């Protein structure tokens, strides 16, 4: 069955590693589905089809059942909320090295609270507890790119550049 799943889209993504670790920790128990989806939602900010297919294959669950659960609970979203997403790691290593300040600065300067999307729908800001790249602490992801060690100003600049870039295109 697994040859039908497009795992390649996701390989090497630190956010995916977080999901994989959660599944491993829960010993790939099918009834851990909701917990795994929680981790996935928090790491990616939304649940893509590829991600759901990956979770279904790993937990040996029917895809339709995983899809049913993902669409039943309002906590889960299937589409990215903002055009872009920035997830700041707030795991222990990143936190100790100041990821709290990064989140704080982004929240203040970009007028968005962690877990939410800017009023213009351009950016979703999120936090995740350990994206598993502690050597890069404090680290974050912007869309599918990984950055770290990062500073509050550096993070803000990168996000602003991205948002302006997408303005130019439109």
């Amino acid at each position, binding site marked *: *069955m697994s040859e*039908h799943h497009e795992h390649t889209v996701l390989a090497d993504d630190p956010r995916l590693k977080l999901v994989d670790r959660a599944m491993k920790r829960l010993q790939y128990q099918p009834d851990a589905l909701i917990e795994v989806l929680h981790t996935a939602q928090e790491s990616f900010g939304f649940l893509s*089809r590829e991600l*759901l*297919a990956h979770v*279904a294959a790993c937990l040996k669950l*029917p*895809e*339709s*059942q*995983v*899809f*049913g659960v993902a*669409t*039943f609970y309002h906590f889960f979203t299937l589409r990215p909320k903002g055009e872009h997403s920035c997830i700041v790691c707030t795991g222990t290593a990143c936190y100790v090295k100041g990821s709290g300040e990064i989140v704080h600065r982004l929240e203040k300067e970009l007028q968005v609270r962690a877990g939410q999307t800017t009023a213009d729908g351009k950016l979703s800001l999120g936090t995740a507890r350990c994206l598993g790249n502690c050597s890069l602490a404090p680290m974050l992801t912007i869309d599918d790119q990984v950055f770290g060690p990062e500073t509050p100003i550096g993070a803000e600049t990168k996000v602003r550049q991205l948002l302006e870039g997408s303005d130019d295109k439109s």
Partner: protein
Amino acid sequence: MSAITLTLNEELVTARQGQTILEVAREHSIHIPTLCYLEGLEEMGGCRLCMVEVQGSARPVPACITKAQEGMVVATDSETITEYRRMIVELLLAERNHTCAVCVQNGSCELQTLAARLGVDHVRFDYLHQQLSMDASRERFALDHNRCVLCLRCVRTCDAVEGAHTWDVRGRGVTSRIVADLDRPWGESVSCTDCGKCVQLCPTGALFRKGATVGEMVKEREFLMRLLERRRAIQGRQS
């Protein structure tokens, strides 16, 4: 298996411990309308058409999932119950688009039969007029969401009998829909074996054989019990 005695429509009947009210009623040729229930599939108690009154219970109970108990006094029909059942059918009719005149299942549809039997001649609720889609991407079969009553027979049979679990339900409440795999067109489903079991057991014209014209779709249900019996026999041989 111990025997119990209960009162069913003012008659004393005996039943086996563990039987549901519906099973006992059927054994005694008492008709209770059902929609989501189908002998052989796991009961889910979803449609509530099988509600009956039990003395001492403030609310009606679904007969298909309520076990008969010693001394129970059950009434399978009353004015209130009939009224509730009518309302359920009317709500189902109002929620989607059941246009019998153009349906392949016209004449052998379980929803249509229920409505006729309960004397539903008009719908007191506003129709939602939802424009739902039709999935005709599979070669032999199609799914018209407009006619789906969410009985989940397709989901249950595909999971427990065929073992493919192609179908499940997306969303909740009025936005619920039957979905194949990750909400793919059915024709692109990788899990479906094309066995047709779901099509045969669907009570309405929601799942149908392509090419069938109005009123042409006659569903064959006997295979289910036959198959389950065969399976039990095979398991007996193996153990």
